[in-house]
């Protein structure tokens, strides 16, 4: 059994090599902003969040109450136009206790960890979860299956965004 594996290239550099200026680099960033067309479904979803309500759509064929709301049922492949309010309570399907920020930098000493979770919203079909964060809870006490409720921003501070819900806290 002869080793015939061929490997070539992949010259490792250190950060020092680059900082010293001996290895030439160019830097750039894509300074382009994006304005996403929300469309009918998400526009209404956000508008309702601003009012302190969560809205879903129902498929007339499979009867799934879908969250986030959509204008079509991706399984039946038909348009849907039945709006359904769902509750602002739900069940934790899964969660994490996260010690790094979105850019991979570690949270500082004393700073609270982020508590992302998938929350199955009451009133939507089984398993219809959304990603959000948890609050007013000791991280060690979070359990899968725990019931939670949305904590809304004060009405004046809501902007029509998913962050109009500050977080979900244990019921």
């Amino acid at each position, binding site marked *: 059994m002869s080793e015939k594996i061929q490997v070539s290239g992949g*010259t490792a*550099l250190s950060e020092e090599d*680059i900082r010293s*200026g001996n*290895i*030439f*680099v*160019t*830097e*750039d*960033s*894509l*300074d*382009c*902003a*994006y*304005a*996403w*067309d*929300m*469309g*009918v*479904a*998400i*526009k209404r979803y*956000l508008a309702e969040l601003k009012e302190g309500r969560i809205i879903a759509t129902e498929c007339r064929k499979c009867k799934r109450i879908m969250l986030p709301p959509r*204008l*079509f049922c991706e399984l039946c492949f038909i*348009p*849907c*136009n039945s709006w359904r309010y769902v509750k602002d309570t739900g069940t934790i399907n899964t969660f994490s206790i996260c010690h790094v920020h979105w*850019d991979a930098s570690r949270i500082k000493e004393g700073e609270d960890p982020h508590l992302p979770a998938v929350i199955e919203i009451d009133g939507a079909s089984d398993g219809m979860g959304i990603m959000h964060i948890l609050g007013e809870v000791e991280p060690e006490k979070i359990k899968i299956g725990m019931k939670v409720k949305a904590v809304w921003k004060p009405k004046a501070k809501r902007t029509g965004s998913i962050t109009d819900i500050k977080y979900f806290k244990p019921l």
Partner: protein
Amino acid sequence: MGILEKITRNVDNRYWDPGVGAFPVKNRYTAGVAGQRFFEKIKEDGNIIGTRCEACEITYVPARLYCERCFKRLEEKDWVDVGTEGIIHSFTVVHKTLEGETKEKPTLLAAIQFADGMLIHRMGECKEEEVYIGMKVTAHFKAKPKRKGGINDIDYFKPL
């Protein structure tokens, strides 16, 4: 909706990404094995080098690690000095900035042939109407202490 029903009033239906730019991270690029040496030559010696593939009879400028036509690895002996004088292959007058705004002063850019390759760069010390395809030009380098190892170590090209 969607098909059944549509938004017919022109209201603000857009959601902007929070902050400036949706890709809030930088990119940093090495010049690579060949590029490192290419820029070193510009920085240290104020000269331009390429790499030659004897089999394909082509000299690449900027220099390459490999011949893209036959995939021969271009080695030590394949590095060739192509000098600082080239010929204009094409040119253009750019009137828009990278932001899409109209420039106060348009830029004269040229693709300048060196051996079988090209460098694309600004033209200087000449007027727009003087430039022509086939014109001989030479590189005007930045002062040595100001060179950092990049294409902008050449300030511009000027008529020979």
